[in-house]
């Protein structure tokens, strides 16, 4: 039996080594810039932690307003430490709430004038 010779009909052009090197450089550059942009966007955007802290502070403010408790105190809510400071404001009270994270870094704060609830 005569041996058949396998022949490929389609002809594939190879890139030159220069082409490949240039493309690699470009793709690395593009990826590098994209990663930088992504990192910046992630860094600059507000953290979920800050948004959560802000919402907790609003909630605490609402509760403090509704209750008769008008004392300076420290509360632990979730992972945050909330400092509640009450100062007199004429015949009203000035409530100042600050939220700190586990690293004792200030995350958010709110301030409001509320009734004295006498």
């Amino acid at each position: 039996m005569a041996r058949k010779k396998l022949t490929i009909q389609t002809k594939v052009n190879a890139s030159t080594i220069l082409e490949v090197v240039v493309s690699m450089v470009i793709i690395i550059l593009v990826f590098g810039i994209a990663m930088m942009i992504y990192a910046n966007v992630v860094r600059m955007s507000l953290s979920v932690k800050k948004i959560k802290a802000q919402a907790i502070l609003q909630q605490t403010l609402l509760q403090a307003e509704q209750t008769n408790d008008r004392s300076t105190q420290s509360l632990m809510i979730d992972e945050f430490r909330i400092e509640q400071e009450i100062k007199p404001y004429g015949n009203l009270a000035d409530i100042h709430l600050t939220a700190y994270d586990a690293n004792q870094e200030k995350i958010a704060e709110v301030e409001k004038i509320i009734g004295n609830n006498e």
Partner: protein
Amino acid sequence: MLKASALYIVIIIALVIGLICSSLIVSAYFYRMEYQKKFRYDQLENNVCSGVNILLASEDTSYAKARIFSLFGSDADSVSLQRFPWGVYDVGISKAFIQKDTIVKVFSFANAVDSSKWAALYLEDQDRPLSLSGETSIVGNAFIPKAGVKKAYVNNKAYVGDERLVAGKKDTSQKKLPQLKKDRLLMLDGYLSKKPVNAVTDSLLKTDSIQNSFLTAARFINFGRKVQTIKNATLRGNIILFSDTTLIIDNSAVLDNVLVFAKSIIVKSTFHGTCQLFARDSIHVEPNCIFDYPSCLGVLKVTSDKRDTPIKIEISEKTIFNGLIFTYQLKEDGILPLISIGKDVKIYGQIYSQGMIKYKDDLEVNGSVFTSLFVYQSSFNLMENMLIDSKLNSRALSPYYLTSDLMSVAGKNKKILQWLEKN
């Protein structure tokens, strides 16, 4: 034949990555912008509420003109506060702003009721007892004359109500009713006697609707000495109507938080609205009207008048009134002021009569009645200090009911009565 074309493919990939990156930047930018907007809004909301609390606690005239100041002495906490009287109640405007963002709240406010002074009935002590007959009930505290309260048999009806006669605490009333607040009376009288300089005679009949914000100056409309009828018109907000003579309010008119000052006022039957009506001589409410809370009917004569015309409020049958009804006259001798209440009238609020309350049948007041004298009128007879088939119930009134500081039962705490405008 396929081409290798590595550069082309790289350019396409770079474009796709570029697109993804730019969309990432844009979405991050909008997210940040929206969050900052929400943060600013929360801060403004806190500041505007602080302003509302300051206005509710203020007692002097320091906010008669809009006052702008910083709440806590920092950058983003400026507020503008103003309060002014609006009939028997007050209106407050609290504005908070950061850069170009502004939040405004306009509200009316009034006093909480002082429970120690609050009573279903305060009957001036004129050395005669109060008599009850038929299905009469007095629920709540009552200030009654020293002569006391007793059962009576009238019109073939014996007293069939609660054996205690008064289902609440009984106290002795004084020879005079608790006084109304002078400042408020003088302010109301000022509008009745002197029209503001910028009051314009408006051809109201040609317009069908006037709406004026409380954030702008009040719109004064003076009808002068011509008897006018307000009909087919909607008047809403910061509007004050004046008339030197009779003013007729037709049932086709819609009044919403409007003040009316006239010599006498006639409200046509089936009228429905929320308004404060003040007259020098009389107010006549025709049958089947509905006044929503907070409304007020007041006839007052603060200055002594040479002409001794009796002052009168007449509320015809099947009317429902929510708010305050009062009569006041400086001159205590002469003809007593009269509040006449028709059959099946329901009142949710307060009646203060520095004179007589005349009723025909089934007097029903869910709230409080302060009066010098009750007069019962039937087809056959006229009886004094007699309550027949009447219901006075201070506990049936909403616990959220607020009263004017004009009244002696007004407590110290002020609360929000109604949100008028906000953005």
